[in-house]
């Protein structure tokens, strides 16, 4: 009987992709690729990944393809991960940050990070293109990078592995019920622990990937207009223009 349990365990594990020491080796390998901040996917390059760097002046991709095509609507069943980096020159960085945040919130998104001159926005995937257009209107675009990666196969691969792991766990539970000795039960439970950990890790990866697909990531870097440019454009010979504004109006200095 003991030999039967061990034999069944061996057969089950072999069917899952190897012996006890090699349970889900592919899953572990891929998990490492997902855990970093880098959005690049190990397998994405072979799945139709598209990465574009768009010079602001050109307004199109290096291949002449309109930049907006990167945000074109994919087939409904595809999982597309959109990311963009925008560099803008603006008159007032603080104001532009507030305006950027407002764009994200208006489109149903949120601010993931806000720094002194950089803001990371998350917007719903279907509003990605609109968000880009509205953000670009806040200043002069000096750099624009848009990535659209098709991660459908990676997502399906993770789903399949999670499903297989759950099936394996169910079979291990059956084996555990049939175990006649403590030794057999301990062996099966060790494997069950490993499989549960794999399931948890796979589900975390699925949630993370799903979130990145549902909400596109847009990083906006803001730079103030150089003082020389401002002076050049505002050199009218009317000194009273300098006395306009909230600071003069709202400061009650007797010597003013």
């Amino acid at each position, binding site marked *: 009987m003991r030999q039967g349990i061990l034999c069944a365990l061996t057969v089950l594990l072999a069917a899952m992709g190897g012996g006890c020491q090699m349970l889900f080796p592919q899953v572990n390998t891929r998990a490492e690729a997902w855990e970093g901040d880098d959005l690049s996917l190990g397998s994405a390059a072979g799945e139709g990944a598209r990465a574009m760097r768009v010079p602001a002046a050109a307004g199109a991709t290096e291949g002449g393809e309109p930049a907006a095509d990167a945000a074109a609507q994919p087939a409904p069943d595809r999982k597309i991960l959109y990311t963009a980096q925008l560099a803008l020159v603006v008159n007032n960085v603080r104001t532009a940050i507030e305006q950027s945040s407002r764009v994200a919130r208006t489109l149903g998104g949120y601010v993931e990070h806000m720094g002194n001159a950089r803001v990371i926005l998350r917007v719903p995937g279907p509003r990605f293109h609109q968000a880009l257009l509205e953000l670009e209107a806040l200043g002069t675009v000096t750099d624009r990078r848009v990535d659209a990666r098709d991660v459908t196969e990676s997502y399906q691969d993770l789903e399949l592995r999670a499903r297989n792991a759950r099936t394996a766990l169910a079979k291990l539970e059956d084996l555990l019920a049939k175990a006649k000795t403590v030794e057999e039960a301990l062996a099966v439970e060790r494997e069950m622990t490993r499989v549960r950990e794999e399931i948890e890790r796979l589900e975390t990866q699925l949630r993370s990937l799903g979130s990145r697909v549902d909400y596109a990531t847009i990083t906006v870097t803001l730079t103030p207009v150089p003082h020389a440019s401002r002076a050049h454009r505002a050199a009218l010979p009317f000194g009273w223009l300098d006395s306009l*504004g909230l600071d003069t109006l*709202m400061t009650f200095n007797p010597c003013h």
Partner: protein
Amino acid sequence: MHRTLLTVGLLALGLTALGGCGDRMTVPEGFVELDAEHRGIYDQRAVSADGVVLAVRRIDVEGSADADFWARAVANRLTQARGYTLESSEPLARAGRRAPHGRLLRFTAPRDGAPHVYLVALYAQPSHVLLAEAGGPRDAFAPIEPQVRDALRSVR
């Protein structure tokens, strides 16, 4: 001789009084007019308890630019050099006048980390520009903006 002197004196007094009055607006309820010590560069200045400020002043200018010219110059200066956001620019007629010969500009800008509203009404005259300004924290400004706009239109 005495009558001539008296006439000249009264005339001078009247002109001085007219000049001294400067340009004024009708201040809405809830505002207090400030005295000369706190009037600064303005001919008239008033403040509400919530920190909204109104002010009027006359700027002598050369040439005969119209309100559109000055509105554009003001908008350029505030948006390009100060980072203000121009939200609207509309023709403006002073109360009791039919033809609009002024412009009302509405800006928003952060001040001390809080959003503020800044309105500028410009009335172009042959030798001067009448400026009526209003500004304050957005939360305090928004509920009274209609009355503030009326005040900016009331400059005479």
